[in-house]
């Protein structure tokens, strides 16, 4: 029974696979890929260590699969399947979601867990291209880069650097309001409108 091949029906097997992916995301909210071992993953998922290798080959493959799934979900949910810009309010959402992205960016041995590209940015490129087909690519890319820096930077650095960080003990709300304004004006500048 320790060998899952063919001995368990798919509906019994797949939950362990998904449990490992979910465990990977919970751990990535706290630390970088290189700090996560295969045993950590199995322990967090509550599955047998052997399943890490059975389903994924290595713990790096679990993390890679989890990060891919995570980013695709971001596009699916926050960008409604890649049909709209990231609403500024998304930065107020579950901090762990963005912490995963942060820890992946912090991974010193980067190619390990990060994909070559960032699906959120790819989705932005597609919608901007559709909304403003004759626009200036430099403008488009600058606007996308600025929106991403603000939207991904805020959950990681925002509260600490504006509110608690002492720059302005009462200013976090105002910084956030300004962030909304800037994201909106960047969005509008590339034809994404303001009704998002």
């Amino acid at each position, binding site marked *: 029974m320790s060998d899952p091949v063919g001995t368990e029906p798919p509906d019994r097997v797949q939950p362990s696979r998904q449990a490992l992916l979910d465990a990977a995301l919970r751990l990535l909210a706290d630390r970088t890929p290189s700090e996560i071992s295969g045993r950590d993953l199995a322990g967090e998922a509550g599955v047998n260590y052997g399943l890490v290798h059975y389903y994924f080959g290595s713990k790096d493959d679990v993390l890679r699969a989890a990060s891919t799934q995570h980013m695709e979900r971001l596009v699916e949910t926050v960008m409604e399947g890649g049909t709209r810009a990231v609403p500024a309010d998304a930065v107020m959402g579950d901090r762990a979601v963005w912490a995963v992205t*942060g820890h992946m960016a912090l991974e010193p041995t980067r190619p390990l867990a990060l994909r070559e590209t960032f699906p959120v940015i790819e989705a932005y490129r597609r919608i901007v291209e559709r909304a403003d087909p004759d626009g200036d690519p430099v403008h488009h890319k600058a606007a996308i*880069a*600025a929106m991403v*820096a603000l939207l991904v930077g805020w959950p990681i*650095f*925002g509260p*600490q650097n504006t509110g608690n960080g002492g720059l302005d003990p009462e200013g976090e709300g105002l*910084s956030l309001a300004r962030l909304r304004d800037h994201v909106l004006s*960047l969005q509008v500048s590339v034809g994404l409108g303001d009704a998002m």
Partner: protein
Amino acid sequence: MRVALTDAAARLLGQRSPGRISGRDLAREAGVNYGLIHHYFGSKQALLQEGLASLADSFAAGDPDGRWSSTEQFSVRHRPDYLHALAFASLAGQIGEVATIHPVAEASLADVARRRGGGEPDRGVRADVGLGIVFQLGYCLFEDLIVESLELEGDERTAVEERLRLVLRAILFNLDAGRAARGIRDGPAVSVRPVSGSGEPD
């Protein structure tokens, strides 16, 4: 010994979350006896705070060879160790206790306040400088990803970075970021009190 421990803390803070750095890790990294942490610093936490503060100070001092200064836009990209330490500490919610950004943030506050009409930085200036710091940290942390995903290279990369400097300027002076991304360099916003002389932000 004291310096060896502070340096060790600075190095480890750039590699992982402060909560995942043990006293033994610090002693091993510094090559000193574990007991010295308490002797010199009283606690591991105090040592980590000194490590972060020393990173902040060395960042604020700029490049020893003068190739960049910490007050330049996006200068934190030159110090990934400090950038990563800030990110780890922020993600762990442990940054508020340390005055990590202050040397540079204070300079930026004073500079922006002066260009926006002088006087003490008001709440709006503080909010904008805070957001400007967040923007720079966010861009620098994700720079590789952004550059790869947008396929930025050569002249286009230079042009986009120039626009991002304009966007940062728009954030600091509460101007229109969308126009900045188009390459339009606005004057001070209407709400900014005009000043004589060098009041034009740059």
